[in-house]
């Protein structure tokens, strides 16, 4: 029962990302070509709304009775710029980031499972060599 609310959030997430076309390979390509405002509009209004919601929420408590907090990202530079660039290369090539990957399977695009399997392998390889990488 306690998982039901997360299932519901996931369903809404999947619907929004399909209806906004953010799961489309073409929309990602178009974004990196700077030929459409669509994706910038989505991310931009998401961030502006997010900033406002998080500012307003500072005085409020979450469902567990604690103040609402967002996990802080660790300090560092190389991991964010190098890791981010590697992610961007893959995102533009496959047109799918880790949310849309699953959502696309729901739309019947089962070949995306190849991308998910490769992403699992990429995550696994990172886990193996992470201590040798600059962070």
């Amino acid at each position, binding site marked *: 029962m306690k*998982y039901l609310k997360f299932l519901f959030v*996931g*369903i*809404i*997430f*999947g*619907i*929004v*990302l399909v*209806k*906004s*076309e953010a799961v*489309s*390979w*073409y929309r990602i390509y*178009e974004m990196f*070509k700077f030929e*459409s405002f669509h994706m910038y*509009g*989505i991310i931009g*209004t*998401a*961030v502006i709304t997010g900033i406002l*919601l*998080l500012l307003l*929420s500072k005085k409020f408590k979450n469902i567990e009775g604690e103040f609402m907090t*967002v996990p802080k990202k660790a300090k560092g530079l190389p991991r*964010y*710029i*190098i*890791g*981010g*660039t*590697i*992610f*961007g290369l893959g995102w*533009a*090539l*496959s*047109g799918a*980031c*880790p*949310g849309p990957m*699953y*959502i*696309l*399977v729901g*739309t019947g*695009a089962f*070949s995306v499972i*190849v991308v*998910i*399997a*490769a*992403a699992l392998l*990429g*995550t*696994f390889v*990172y886990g*193996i060599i992470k201590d040798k990488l600059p962070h």
Partner: protein
Amino acid sequence: MNLISHAFMEVILEPWPWYISGPLIAIIMFVLIYFGKTFGMSSNLRTLCAIGGAGKSVKFFDFDWKAQRWNLTVVLGAIIGGFIAHFYLSVPTTIDLNPETVKTLGTLGFENAGQSLLPAELYSWDAVFSIKGLAILIIGGFLVGFGTRYAGGCTSGHAITGLSSLQLPSLIAVIGFFLGGLIMIHLLFPLIFG
């Protein structure tokens, strides 16, 4: 009343504009934070590695993955949501791409741009079972999985949650996302698909 619900359904069935979709994504993030969790889809890749037994040989995957079951439930929901949206809440539409984009894609060998969510040139079974097509999907997926864990987050964790909470590391990561994306589209695409 019937007329109103009819008009409402028609609006739902059309693609949703960015100014509706963006705020809804922020609300999804906010609801997860209200539930005492966070909005981060790429963590599930690490969790799935742990469930697969990767923790036995690699310390990075040796953690209590059961605490992440809520996030896997979000993934399950996302798959169901994708199904509902695609099969019950959509009418066949061509994605309203910039005609310039469609033209450029044509020169790269992508026909019928925007007539489906994914290009058949990459995601049809014919493409998947060709060496080049399979290599593209595997390399793309691998880079996403490796890069997201290295950067400590993806579009949901950094671009939405991190930027919304004004965190500098997330801004750097998002700059990296774009750096990589621009290199891929502008420098590498002409080499791969030209």
